[in-house]
């Protein structure tokens, strides 16, 4: 980093705020360690992704408005959730169109390029790949569908992981296949979702990894939920938590349902 410390607003997402606060804490720890000044607009709630994808686009128009208001003053917005970033960047234009609100459309249009997924911020804006993390564990990376196909993150997360000290990265077979989460799909088509999940879990186990990492806690909750149910001894963990880790402590995620058992986390 050359220029003065950048300012970034954290878009935590309702899901992480409520269920995976450790991912938010890790994001803050990591960014502050890299000299970024982080703020957190408390007016933010939910981007409306679940509503939109389930067919309730009209009902979530107020959520897009709230997002525009909450982040109106932010220069740069970062989120540790690829699918929520994709909601804002790829789908908000359609929401504004449905709302038929020109003012909202302009606000959202102005916000879109400022919303970044964590690995985009690190690599594209801050220009770092080695974030100074230490994580001496066997790890496999699952590229979630929205990070892969909507945000086109490419190998950014992997480049960050490769630079982590002590890490052993193991390749996941058929990595780009969906884990079967799909938001309400996991409930509406639970059987098909589980069939997809079983195959994903089998491939994760085939790698011999002890940790499965991704850039989205929704997919990780799905994958981790099965790892936990099967008591297979492999845990799911968000990319931010690996990148924030600096000690040799055991890998651990907050809720037991994202892994098995629990020990001290490597993240402060």
């Amino acid at each position: 980093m050359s220029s003065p410390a950048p300012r970034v607003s954290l878009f935590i997402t309702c899901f992480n705020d409520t269920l995976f606060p450790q991912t938010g804490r890790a994001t803050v720890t990591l960014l502050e360690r890299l000299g970024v000044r982080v703020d957190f607009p408390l007016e933010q709630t939910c981007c409306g992704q679940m509503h939109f994808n389930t067919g309730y686009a009209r009902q979530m128009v107020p959520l897009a408005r709230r997002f525009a208001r909450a982040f109106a003053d932010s220069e740069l917005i970062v989120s540790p959730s690829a699918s929520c970033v994709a909601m804002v960047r790829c789908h908000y234009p359609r929401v504004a169109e449905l709302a038929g609100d020109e003012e909202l459309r302009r606000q959202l249009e102005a916000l879109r390029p400022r919303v970044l997924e964590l690995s985009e911020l690190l690599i594209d804006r801050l220009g770092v790949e080695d974030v100074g993390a230490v994580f001496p564990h066997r790890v496999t990376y699952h590229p979630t569908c929205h990070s892969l196909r909507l945000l086109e993150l490419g190998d950014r997360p992997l480049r960050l992981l490769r630079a982590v000290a002590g890490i052993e990265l193991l390749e996941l077979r058929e990595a780009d296949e969906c884990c079967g989460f799909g938001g309400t799909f996991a409930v509406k088509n639970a059987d098909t979702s589980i069939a997809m999940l079983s195959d994903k879990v089998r491939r994760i186990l085939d790698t011999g990894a002890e940790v499965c990492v991704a850039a989205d806690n929704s997919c990780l909750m799905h994958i981790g939920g099965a790892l936990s149910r099967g008591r297979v001894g492999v845990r799911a963990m968000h990319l931010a938590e690996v990148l924030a880790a600096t000690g040799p402590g055991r890998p651990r995620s907050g809720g037991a349902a994202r892994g098995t058992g629990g020990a001290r986390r490597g993240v402060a």
Partner: protein
Amino acid sequence: MSAAGGPRLGVVGAADHPPFPRAARAALADSQLRHNLGQATRAIRARRAEAVGELPDWEQLREAGRAIKDRVLRHLDHYLLELEAAVQRGGGHVHWARDADECNRIVCQLVAAHGTREVVKSKSMLSEETQLNEALAEHGIRAWETDLAQLIVQLADEAPSHILVPAIHKNRREIRELFAATLEEVPDDLSAEPAALAEVARQHLRRRFLEARVGISGANFAVAETGAVVVVESEGNARMCTTLPEVLITVMGIEKVIPTWQDLEVYLQLLPRSSTAERMNPYTSLWTGVSAGDGPAEFHLVLVDNGRTNALGDEVGRQALRCIRCSACLNVCPVYERVGGHAYGSTYPGPIGAILTPLLSGLDAAPSLPYASSLCGACYEVCPVKIDIPEVLVHLRQAEVERPARRSRPLGSPDGERAVMAALARVFASRRLYEAAQRTGRLARLVLARGGRIERLPGALGGWTAARDLPAPPAESFRDWWRRRARDAH
């Protein structure tokens, strides 16, 4: 026969078909089907990626494929009339059919007028859509399918489960049993080797080809400028169907017209690489009207709407009419790979079927199909004409949610779902309610969780905990931590 084989379909999105989640549940339990499909789709996926990877201008080709079709859809009336005039100039007859019944009536009358009881047919998804074979049977006319895989599903009295590979759900041992039971002159020691199976079918089909006086085909493209009709295929059976009989009847969806001969350059590259992963398909048959002493003496082109103008009226959904039936989206779809084609209960399965079926025949006929996807986007990525299938799925979900008369219900009671979604939207729209809900949610930790995990949820959410644990809500939300940290810093 696999349990998911099922009887032949009714009209597109047959009303008596179980909703997708129920049909999928049955299909998922069929281990033979899962194995057959998994093997077949994995192999074809890898080959397609290789074939597409060879072309440096693949993205430009996709863009051209999209643009040409979009132009056709904007000026469909113009190009159809131009096509009609060109076919007539070439000595062919053109018929217009509003729907499946009209299409079938026209074809049956034409066949009956030639006093024949048997016709040979090359593969046509449109004829599956209109159930042409059944209509012909009612008129005492036997239609012989001549595409190998289509013959297999016909002999099994099933519907195709894949657009390109209709019998993808069957393995060769199952096909051996079927041939032994249904075809004449099958050797007792027929093996399950593909070559032996193909030979039995070839002998059977050769007799049909030589006897038939009327052939029926579909069409992949028709060129408005010249009147040329195009069929691409692998086996040569369509070539036989369109050249040997005295009379040829081609049924074609109205969206299959393309403006100029040169446009074929784009599609004859996009289609084979996307569908069979070939640089070029083995047979490309093109004909314009009739030619004296060469091929059929009489040619009829039936232009069929059957819901296509409905789809055209849908601003977001109309892109589905670009589809060239390559089936690349089926082969990459993780849902299709696991449940197979029959679970969709429609002529067109997989991602394209999940949008095309409700667009052609109304959401009423297939309300659960727009939800038969995790929105992973793999289909859009491979589509050679850039149909944004996830976009259309979400659009159709919205239409379904807003449909006044909802009959079949995708998730328990949709009114229950609507109420939950409305309540959640209200909570998320207010910081105060949102934070209160977070505090309330923490109670779940006390009520539902054991050892930090929730293993059983009530009601519709039970689908989640059928196979997955859920993390107990943590004691402190992120925003609580953030505020505490700010306080501690002071």
